[in-house]
C-alpha cells in the first residue's frame, strides 16, 4: 500500500512541481495517471520508490516512510520502468541486463537463472538472450527494460509512458500482461497520454493538472467527461466521442468499452427494426 499525504515538491530551480497531493494506492490497484505535459505526473510517481523525497508531506510505502530508507530497499517492492529504455541499458547481453537488478538485490544464482529465463520467455526475448541490447529495435529494447524490472517480481509496478513506440501487437501484449499482473493482485500504476489504451484497460484514472490531482475515479466516469478532459488537454476516446454525438438518439454517453458499445448499438438497432415492422 502506498499512502501519499499532502506532498509538496519543489525542484532546485524553485519550480513547485507538486502542490499538495494526497492519494492512497491499495494493494492490487490498477491506476492510470493522466494529465497534460508538465502537470507533475513523472515527479509524482518518482516519489513511489523514493527517487524523489517530498519537500513537505509524507509518502509511506507498506508503512515505511520513504525519507527513512534507501531507494534500493524500496525498489525491491516498487519496480519502476522508465520511459526511455536507453537510459538504463548498458550490459553486453540481454541476459546480463535482466540479471543486473537481481544481482543488486543479492538473489542466489539459481533464482537469478530461473527468473531471467522466465522474463525472457514472457517478453518473447529468448532468441536474443546472448545478443547485445544495443543491437535490438526500439520496441525490443523497451521490452528488455520491462523484463529487467519484472524479473524480480516486485509487488507494485510503476510504468512511465509504457506504450510509446510500441505497435498495436505489443500494446495488446502489454495490456494482457497488465491484466495478468492485476489478476495476481499486483499493484500497477502507469503514466500515459494514450487515452485509447487507458479506455481499453479500464483502470482507476487519476487526472493531474498544475501539480494537483483534479479528478480520481473509474475510467468510465472520467474519460467520458468532456469538460474535465479538455482542462487536461486530453481528447475523449473515440468510442466516447461517437456516443456523445449519438446522444440525441437517447443512447448513454458514458461508454468506453467496445463490447459494451456493440451491445448497446445492436440493441438500439433491433429496437428500431421492431418499431419499423
Amino acid at each position, binding site marked *: 500500500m502506498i499512502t501519499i499525504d499532502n506532498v509538496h515538491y519543489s525542484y532546485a530551480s524553485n519550480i513547485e512541481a507538486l502542490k499538495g497531493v494526497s492519494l492512497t494506492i491499495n494493494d492490487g490497484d490498477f491506476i492510470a495517471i493522466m494529465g497534460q505535459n508538465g502537470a507533475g505526473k513523472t515527479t509524482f510517481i*518518482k516519489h513511489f*520508490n523514493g*527517487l524523489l523525497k517530498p519537500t513537505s508531506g509524507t509518502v509511506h510505502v507498506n508503512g515505511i516512510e520513504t525519507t527513512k530508507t*534507501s*531507494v*534500493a530497499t524500496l*525498489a*525491491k517492492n516498487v*519496480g*519502476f520502468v*522508465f520511459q*526511455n529504455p*536507453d*537510459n*538504463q*541499458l*548498458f550490459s553486453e547481453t540481454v541476459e546480463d541486463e535482466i540479471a*543486473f*537488478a537481481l544481482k*543488486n*538485490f543479492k538473489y542466489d544464482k539459481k533464482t537469478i537463472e530461473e527468473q531471467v529465463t522466465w522474463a525472457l520467455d514472457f517478453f518473447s526475448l529468448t532468441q536474443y538472450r546472448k545478443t547485445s541490447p*544495443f543491437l535490438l529495435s526500439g520496441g525490443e529494447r523497451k521490452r528488455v527494460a520491462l523484463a*529487467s*524490472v519484472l524479473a*524480480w517480481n516486485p509487488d507494485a509496478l510503476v510504468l512511465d509512458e509504457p506504450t510509446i513506440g510500441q505497435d498495436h501487437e505489443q500494446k495488446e501484449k502489454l495490456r494482457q500482461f497488465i491484466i495478468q499482473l492485476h489478476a495476481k493482485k499486483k499493484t500497477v500504476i502507469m503514466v500515459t497520454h494514450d487515452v485509447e489504451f487507458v479506455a481499453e484497460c479500464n483502470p482507476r484514472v487519476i487526472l493531474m493538472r498544475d501539480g494537483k490531482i483534479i479528478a480520481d475515479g473509474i475510467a468510465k466516469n472520467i474519460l467520458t467527461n468532456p469538460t474535465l478532459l479538455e482542462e487536461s488537454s486530453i481528447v475523449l476516446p473515440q468510442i466516447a466521442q461517437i456516443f456523445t454525438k449519438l446522444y440525441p438518439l437517447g443512447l448513454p454517453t458514458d461508454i468506453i468499452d467496445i463490447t459494451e458499445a456493440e451491445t448497446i448499438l445492436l440493441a438500439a438497432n433491433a429496437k428500431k427494426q421492431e418499431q419499423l415492422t
Partner: protein
Amino acid sequence: MSVFDGLKFRKVSSPIHNLDPRIKFIYVIAIFISAILFSQILPLAILFLMQLPFVFLAGVQKQWVKSLRGAAFLATFIFVINIVTKFFYNNWTIQFSDIEIALSMTMRFVVLVESFSVFFLTTSPDYLGLALEQSRMPYEFAFAFTTAVRFVPVLAEEAQTIMDAQKARGLELEKGNLLKRIRNYIPILVPLIVSAIRRSLELAEAMESRAWGAVKKRTNLYLLKLHKGDYILISITAIILITTLYLRFFVTIPSITYYINLISNFFS
C-alpha cells in the same frame, strides 16, 4: 553531477558577464599557465584568492561553490595519491614537506577548476562561438565547440535520469570500497556515452536536412568589440603573467616547511 551545475551559464548582466569572451579566455589561460608554473602552496593560494573578486562581481557565488564542491572528490583523490606515493617512495615515512607538496598539487587543481568555472558561468555559449569565429577559426570548428558546451547541461540532466533508472534497479552508488564505487559508475557511463553518440548522429542528420553549410560565407548579427573593461582585464592579465614569470624564474619562493623549520630552529 554538481560539477556541471558549476559550468552552467545563466543569462544575467554583470561587469564580468559583459566582458569580451576572447579577453576572458586569455585571462583564464594566463591563470592556467601561472598555476602550472608554480608548485608552491603560497603563490597557488594567492592565485586562488585572486579569483574571488571576479566571482563576487559576477554574482555567481552559489554556482561557483557548487562547482568547487563537485570538484572536491577529485581534489581529495589527488591529495591522497600524492601522499600515498610519497609515503611508499620515502620508505613508509611522511614529512611535513610532503604534505605541503600534496596540498599544493590539490590547490593547483582547485585553481584550474575555479578559473574555468568562472569563465563558463559568465560566458554565453553564443558569444563563445562568436569569439572563436572572429578569431578566424573555421565555422565548423566553432560550431562544434559551441554545441559541445551547449550540450553539457543536457547531458548532466540525462546522467541524472540514468542514475535514477539504475537506482530503481537496486544500484547503490555509494556502497562498497573505492574500486567497487568506481565500478558502480559503469551502468551510468555506458548509457550516457551511447546516448551522446546517438544524439550527435541525430543532430547531424537534422542539421543536414536543414541545409547546414549551404552558404559558404556567413555574416553575423552581432559583432564583438572591445570596451573599457576589456582593456582593464587585458592589463591585469599582462601584469599577472609578467609577475608570474618574474617570481618563477628570478625569485626563490619560500615554502611553509621552510618557515616552520626556521621557527623550530629558533626555539631549540
